[in-house]
């Protein structure tokens, strides 16, 4: 009993000797939300967007200071540049809340492998940040833009990337793990969406950017960059980007349209998309049958066409199916031109036909280029909206009567 008491006392005395081991007070760190990676003369130029918490959530009235600040430092590698930044930054930079990593097109073309090692290795990073490619502008300028509505531009970028993927579909929300899989797994190539500045990149850095109804500079995410290994090799345009999302079964909801016979368009809202790939290997000839099953609503009709009967709707459905096949066909052709199997056809073959894959793996790029594509689309219209027939015809009639 006495011995136990001594052990207890000693434990209690020893406990505080650890001295709050590896404790960090919130007042000793600054929270980084976005990182931009540009090329410098002998390495990388790292730009880190950090938060000025008092500006965002402080109880006091907002001052004239900006909500975020961008620090920039150069170094041969990312980690070196980051640590060099401590000479500029007032406190230690805390990386766990990084939401966006923007890599300049220049770095991406050279290869992003060297950049990624630190992001994957460092324990402070969470794996749920998204990666984007700065197109035409430097990554530094992109992380420096002050956005209206969202006071932290990293928040704006993540939320609009997620929203555009979900409701519009020509972008791809790529997190670190997905990118690593694309780069490393056989039979698949990586993609990253691009980010641009719309407007004046220098004025976008001022707080006044958010004080206008029409800001000087806006960030927007569009189009998908195609990688071969860890190198950026080209871009898909908006339609092809959407086609890419269709083929990889990544469309949650989007809007697509076809031209009418006369001038006008039929726009449908896709609310369910189910796309499956069925590989078939015959000797060295790979055939990929892609079956898309879409449920759509009529969203907008600006031409004179009837939607009363099943036949009318079937005609519209057929048009959309045709259009969809065309989009997917174009996308695959674009990817073949870049010699990058971004759809993961090879991966699909590997999973379904592992024995054939063993044979095809070595020379997959050639086989990918020779792959036959069979497209089958089924589109079903569910609802025609609040009205049946478009009223274009009625307007015309009325005009004629007058």
């Amino acid at each position: 009993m006495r011995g136990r008491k001594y052990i207890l006392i000693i434990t209690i005395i020893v406990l505080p000797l650890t001295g709050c081991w590896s404790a960090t007070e919130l007042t000793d760190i600054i929270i980084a939300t976005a990182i931009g990676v540009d090329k410098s003369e002998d390495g990388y130029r790292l730009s880190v967007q950090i938060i000025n918490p008092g500006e965002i959530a402080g109880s006091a009235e907002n001052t004239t200071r900006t909500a975020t600040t961008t620090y920039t430092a150069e170094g041969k590698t990312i980690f070196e540049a980051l640590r060099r930044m401590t000479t500029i930054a007032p406190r230690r930079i805390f990386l766990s809340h990084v939401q966006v990593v923007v890599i300049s097109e220049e770095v991406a073309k050279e290869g992003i492998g060297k950049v990624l090692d630190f992001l994957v290795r460092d324990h402070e990073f969470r794996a749920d940040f998204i990666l984007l490619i700065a197109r035409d502008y430097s990554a530094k300028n992109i992380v420096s833009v002050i956005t209206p509505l969202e006071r932290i531009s990293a928040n704006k970028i993540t939320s609009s990337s997620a929203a555009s993927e979900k409701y519009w579909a020509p972008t791809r929300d790529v997190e670190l793990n997905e990118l690593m899989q694309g780069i490393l797994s056989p039979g698949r190539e990586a993609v990253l969406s691009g980010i641009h500045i719309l407007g004046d990149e220098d004025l976008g850095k001022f707080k006044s950017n958010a004080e206008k109804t029409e800001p000087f500079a806006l960030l927007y995410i569009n189009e998908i960059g195609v990688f071969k290994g860890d190198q950026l090799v080209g871009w898909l345009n908006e339609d092809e980007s959407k086609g890419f999302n269709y083929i990889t079964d990544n469309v949650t909801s989007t809007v697509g349209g076809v031209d009418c016979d006369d001038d006008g368009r039929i726009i449908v809202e896709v609310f369910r998309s189910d796309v499956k790939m069925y590989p078939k290997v015959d000797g060295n000839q790979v055939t990929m049958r892609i079956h898309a099953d879409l449920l759509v609503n009529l969203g907008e009709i600006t031409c004179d066409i009837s939607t009363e009967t099943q036949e009318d709707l079937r005609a519209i459905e057929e048009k959309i199916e045709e259009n969809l096949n065309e989009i997917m066909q174009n996308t695959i052709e674009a990817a073949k031109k870049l010699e990058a199997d971004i759809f993961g056809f090879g991966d699909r073959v590997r999973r379904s036909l592992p024995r054939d894959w063993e044979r095809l793996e070595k020379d997959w790029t050639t086989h990918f280029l020779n792959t036959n594509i069979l497209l089958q689309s089924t589109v079903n219209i569910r609802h025609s909206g609040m009205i049946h027939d478009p009223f274009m015809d009625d307007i015309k009639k009325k005009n004629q009567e007058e």
Partner: protein
Amino acid sequence: MRLRSKKRTAEEKQKIIENISISDQAEISTSLRENDEIIRKMLGNSDDFISRKILLNKQQPIQVQLYYIDALVDKDTLQNDLLGCILNLPSKVDPSWKTEKDLYDFLQNETINTSDLTKIENLKELFSNLLSGDTIILIEGYSKAFATNTRGGQDRGVPEVTTQKIIRGPKEGFTERIGTNIGLVRRRIKDPNLWVKKYCIGEKTQTEVSIAYINGIVNDDIVKEVDQRLSRIEIDSILESGYIEQLIQDAKYSPFPTINNTERPDTIAAGLLEGRIAIFVDGSPFTLLVPALFTDFLQSSEDYYQRSDIGTLLRLLRTFAFFLAMMTPAGYIALTMFHQEMVPTTLLVGLAAQREGIPFPAFIEALIMEITFELLREAGVRLPSSVGSAISIVGALVLGQAAVEAGIVSSAMVIVVSLTAIASFVFPSYNLAITVRILRFGFMALAASFGFFGIFIGLILLVFHLVSLRSFGIPYTTPLAPFIAVDQKDVFVQSVLWKERTRPRLISQKNITRSKLNLPEAQKKKR
């Protein structure tokens, strides 16, 4: 008249007075004067001690002496019942009695009409009865006395429960009178098997302590254990049931209570019906209930008065509150000092903004606020109710708002401390609330030293400690560890009343069946 001369010398008397508190077996003298002298000396001629001489039977005069303590007796009973019948005696007296013994029997059997009459053989009994409020009657020339029950004096009546309030259920609570208290329970359980055993504990206070249990339901081993522990107590005074609790509890150095206490007769009745033992202590409205298990402290008698879904929800809420009250500040400290990556970005930014300019580390900040709150709470208990509102203003405005505005503490910390405080008031029993208050500081220190790692080490040690405890032989964490499947119906989830057909195992080991009624089936048969 023959006076049996059994006179004592002055020396002998002195000896008795000196030794009475030790031996107490000294006999009552036949001489009234001698008795008077001894009694007066023993009581130090206290002014509230009253004696009255009455002369009976004018033909053959015989002296009778009455003793009582002014404040302890019920004047009505004394005057109307006792004095009335004794003073009216001379007309009725039967001259046939010859000896003092005859008179004694005559008084006992035919004259005195108070409800109970005890024969007193020695001085110890005499004092014990006298000081309990009985009136003592001594007869000249006879060495035995009566104690007539005239107990009374000031009483609070049956008050409303103040510490364990409920919304639905009986409002009456225990009082300081042990007789009233046992009566309140008896009124609820009209069963001859409700047995009561009386003890007299405390050398000076002579406090009446009674245990009550239902024979046939209770586990006899536990009764034996309680009996042994109570009999073993040697102390000068028992002023509150808390004394008994501390003297007989199992784990004396554990922060966890192993004896339940309540002010509610219905809780005691429910406990008895589960096979527990109640310990009533005179002078205290808090009655003890043993054995007490950990989960009992998270349950309220009200749970059973409402439908079971509501009861279940409230129990889960209380269990949640237990962890909340114990670990909210610790969790906050760990998150802000060690694990910033676990906080959602927006929240972290908010917290960081509040912490800007706060001079203290999170741990010190939490400590300041917790201690302030404990001070406020303690002050609130002591303060007369008329100034109670002043404290709440000082607490809420001055300490809460001003401290935040002055930049000494962050407003998130104020929220954390308030949340902790509210959660700690959720428990139906005050015991566990205090336990949680103590443990909270330990967890805060662990969190400040090691973050969540420390909190989990603390939790593991806490579980070790809990499972090592026993309450009167029953493992403290029953029915969770040891796991008893049938008893899960009444732990966190409260099943409907007609399904609770058995009493908790281990506590009551025989007569386990509670009801044979299966309500839906009974209804089916009717149709």
